[in-house]
């Protein structure tokens, strides 16, 4: 569980992010404490994946600052970023396994690159992680031979192979059946218990978020509406949060004049 007295592991200060002309993130501020599971939630297009990409250093925010373990990743050198990334694990939505390598070789990749361990030790460590993810025996298969849930678990195995203290997980439940999704939630909790990780999960699945989160951040149209514990989120009276929790469809008011214009406009 998070320790509030410690300084944040990740500090996001007033970032703004754009895709072309579109303003995706608007003055986002966030602090993630060591040892906590923080879930970033929001509906599709709310900017949660963009926020994750900014935190991972895959996108540079237009303004603002992101600090991970005290390092400003927007100003960091390539070498500093590389060293930081060695201590982080990222599990992508579709697994993002390299299609030219077997599942085993994918998981071994960070160890082969960043350590001098012998091949035997690397193989044992890989099998350990595969066992942990219920993927024992799938080492020699190619990613194309795995199901969606297996790909996510293999991606997670690769993300934790270096035993990182900080793990990011993008949409663990998306596109999975309820049973596999619940299994992944259990895995995330188990990982935190076993390895004392700080975990940041991006999801739009309410049930999953309530189950695993210490704190939840809700994004709406690129702005953070609230960051709080599960109870605080459930008791929040903000209409956007209530609508998200109750799965209420957006009530978009239609301007008759604009609606007619859209219907009758000439094709450009």
């Amino acid at each position, binding site marked *: 569980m998070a320790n509030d007295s410690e300084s944040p592991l990740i500090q996001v200060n007033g970032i703004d992010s754009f895709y072309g002309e579109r303003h995706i993130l608007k003055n986002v501020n966030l602090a993630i404490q060591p040892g906590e599971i923080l879930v970033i939630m929001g509906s599709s297009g709310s900017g949660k994946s963009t926020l994750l*990409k900014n935190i*991972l*250093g*895959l996108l540079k925010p237009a303004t603002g600052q992101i600090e991970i373990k005290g390092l400003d990743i927007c100003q960091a050198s390539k070498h500093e*970023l*590389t*060293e930081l*990334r*060695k201590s*982080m694990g*990222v599990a*992508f*939505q*579709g697994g*993002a*396994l*390299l*299609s030219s390598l077997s599942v085993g070789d994918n998981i071994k*990749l*960070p160890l082969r*690159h*960043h350590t001098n361990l012998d091949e035997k030790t690397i193989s044992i460590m890989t099998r350990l992680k595969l066992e942990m993810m219920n993927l024992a025996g799938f080492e020699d298969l190619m990613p194309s031979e795995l199901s969606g849930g297996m790909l996510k678990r293999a*991606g997670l195995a*690769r993300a934790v192979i270096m035993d990182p203290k900080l793990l*990011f997980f993008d949409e663990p439940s998306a596109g999975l059946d309820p049973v596999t999704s619940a299994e992944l939630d259990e895995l995330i909790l188990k990982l935190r218990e076993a390895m004392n990780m700080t975990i940041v999960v991006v999801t739009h699945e309410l049930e999953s978020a309530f189950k695993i989160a210490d704190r939840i951040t809700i994004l709406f149209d690129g702005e953070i509406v609230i960051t709080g514990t599960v109870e605080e989120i459930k008791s929040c009276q903000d209409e956007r949060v209530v609508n998200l929790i109750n799965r209420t469809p957006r009530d978009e008011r239609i301007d008759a004049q604009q609606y007619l214009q859209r219907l009758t406009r000439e094709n450009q």
Partner: protein
Amino acid sequence: MRQAIEKLGAHTIINVEELGRLSVFLFTVFKSVFSRALRMSEVLKQVAFIGARSMPIVILSGLFTGMVLALQFYDVLARFGSVDLMGSAVALSLIQELGPVMTALMIIARVGSATCAEIAIMRNEQQFDALQCMAIDPYRYVMAPRLVAAIISIPLLTAIFNVIGILGGYLVGVLIKGVSGTAYLQSMIERVVWDDVQMSIIKSFLFAIVVIWIAMGKGFFVHLEKGVSGAEAVSRVTTKAVVASAIAMLFVDYIASSFLI
């Protein structure tokens, strides 16, 4: 009229922007080749893909090119009563020009398109993001072995194309048209000099860089394609890569020829 000029201007800006992006990409790939030890297993895998598996089409196209050349030269040389020069005519045409160009075209069709599509799909499936997050440089891991493999394979394939083409010319010239075998080989030995072979090597080396550079670069920046995404974007960049690398290769061919002849 104004609209047309605006469109031309917008198009020019997009193309200049892309050329700049691809130039930086090529520079970064070259830098990554020399930054740390290369993954030799991946270089060998790519040599097998670009080189060994391209052998059948290179041999076939080389054979037919040489045969057609012999037919053409026989017709022309017979009018001047100089069919004995056929060997040198076929060999010089192949070594100086057709060998490097035809081999590069075959590689664009077989390797350029496949490489571009593969890299574009890797981008779409976030495989490059994953590499970056694992602190593995995608340029060094994915691009550098392909560049090195192309630089090794394409000049070798060109040499094979040249030899098979000369053999094809011999088959048609000597065995079908009745040109003297000794004259065919003798004229070739007398007139083909080291500078001609050197030109072939330099051209094929330059073509190797151009072909693999454009294929990799177009695929790598598939996410920047305007108005399309997913499978459609992959198909569009692959088509663009094939066309652009063929044109760029011919442009480089002209420049190189003007310096080397």
